[in-house]
């Protein structure tokens, strides 16, 4: 499968502090790639390098096969959508006027405005001034603006950090449909549940390097301790091995009709994150 992003040996030095030391990864066409890491680990910095907003100190970053720094041409800009943390919307203008400007800049018909507002569940806010919107609404408008032009590659830097669960779900549905249309998504998030729902593969960035990179399922299996927890009728919980040693214990519990429920002790992405980075999520 074709690689949309190819990063190798990427390093970034700010003044005297290194944000990225040696980062390498590839993002395949059509996949949703989760870029996870503690606060300050360099996720936003990586997105900035990949979107030609920042130059790297060392290493190569190819997007669509060309160095990221060369992406300033209109033709490439039309293939890329970016959502960053600070909204960048015109406060005095309405939602509609903000999106209309971007329709014109990207050569997109104005009818697209209603479509994207529907995707972020904000059709009613069309005539409202940006300055009158809540934080979560702003984030959704910024998101709508990011995929207004149906980009082939979408960078999302914490797209749901200000959203309630209902609206997050709505956004997930929207992102799923973009994915079905073949959009490649590069996503950073602090929400491990979100990463699990959306991402085909995730990378854990820590101390300037990628410490893990795989599908969420493979990571869970890799970090699983191969035990089951059995909740018994008397309210106690027993941890038993999934192997042959556990079989007899389980057989006995079941024979005596003592089993209330069984859980698999697979770690969540959050557990793996804490284990790998040795730090709490912020």
């Amino acid at each position, binding site marked *: 499968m074709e690689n949309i992003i190819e990063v190798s040996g990427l390093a970034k030095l700010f003044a005297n502090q290194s944000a990225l030391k040696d980062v390498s990864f590839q993002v395949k066409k059509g996949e949703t790639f989760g870029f996870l890491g503690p606060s300050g680990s360099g996720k936003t910095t990586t997105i900035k390098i990949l*979107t030609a*907003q920042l130059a790297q100190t060392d290493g190569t970053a190819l997007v669509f096969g060309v160095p990221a720094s060369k992406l*300033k*041409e*209109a*033709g490439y*800009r*039309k293939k*890329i959508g*970016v959502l*960053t943390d*600070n*909204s*960048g*919307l*015109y*406060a*005095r*203008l309405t939602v509609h*006027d903000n999106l209309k*400007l*971007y329709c*014109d*800049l*990207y*050569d997109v018909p104005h009818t697209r405005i209603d479509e994207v507002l529907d995707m972020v569940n904000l059709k009613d806010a069309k005539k409202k001034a940006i300055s009158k919107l809540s934080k979560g609404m702003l984030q959704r408008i910024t998101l709508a*603006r990011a995929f207004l032009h149906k980009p082939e590659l979408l960078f999302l830097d914490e797209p749901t950090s200000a959203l309630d669960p209902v609206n997050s779900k709505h956004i997930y549905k929207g992102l799923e449909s973009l994915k079905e249309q073949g959009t490649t998504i590069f996503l950073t998030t602090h929400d491990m549940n979100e990463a699990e729902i959306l991402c085909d593969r995730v990378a854990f960035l820590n101390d300037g390097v990628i410490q893990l990179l795989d599908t969420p399922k493979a990571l869970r299996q890799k970090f699983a301790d191969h035990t089951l927890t059995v909740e018994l009728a008397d309210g106690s919980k027993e941890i038993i091995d999934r192997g042959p040693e556990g079989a007899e214990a389980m057989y006995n519990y079941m024979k005596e009709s003592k089993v209330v429920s069984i859980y698999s002790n697979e770690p969540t992405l959050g557990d793996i994150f804490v284990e790998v980075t040795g730090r709490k999520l912020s």
Partner: protein
Amino acid sequence: MTFSIKRSIAILQKDYKDVSKNLFVGSSIFMPLVLAALYGRLGVESINEFYMIFNMTFCLVAAYVQCSLIAEEKEKNTLRGLMLSPASTVEILAGKSLLSFIATVLVIAFAAFLIEYKPENILVISIALILSTVFYIGLGTVLGLVTKSVMEASVVILPFMAIFSFGSFLTVFAEKYPILKVAEYMPNSQLIILASEVQIGASLADIWFNLLVILAWVAVIYILVVIVYRKRMMD
């Protein structure tokens, strides 16, 4: 890189809507008109006084509006979105310059009507006024590129207002202090000299030198725009 007039127009439309909702910047467009209305009622008739209003328009509309349009994009973080879009910096600046240009021309025309200024040679005066507008938009662009917020822009513009709106009065003292002769070569002074000559019957052949001086200022300011742009946009 190709230049898209469509994208420039889109930015112009956006800025027009934005400025019309911005009391602070929007009101500076009307200030010269208020003064012009006042002058009109007082029956002011000298070229010096007419051109004080015009030079004020250049500073408040051409330079200041241009400067604050650029500064605000940086202050509110909206420039980033534009830079990530297909719009190039040249297209963005062109859109803003077009708005400042149209606003300046309209205000000058309306102010001239209010003060009942009737130039003897409308063609020459039009050329001189348009050249001046282009110069002040360049000045506003330079200041907009170096300032980071509308507040900062409003402060930075003040000394330029003092020099370019009222600086022409310095030439009055030039007899006594020869150093002030330099003020005669300022674009605002040149414009007044040119307009005074035209009013007493001068033709293009008589005032070509003044036009050339203003043109030289235009060249200098746009070279400065390019230099500052290259330095500032490297972030």
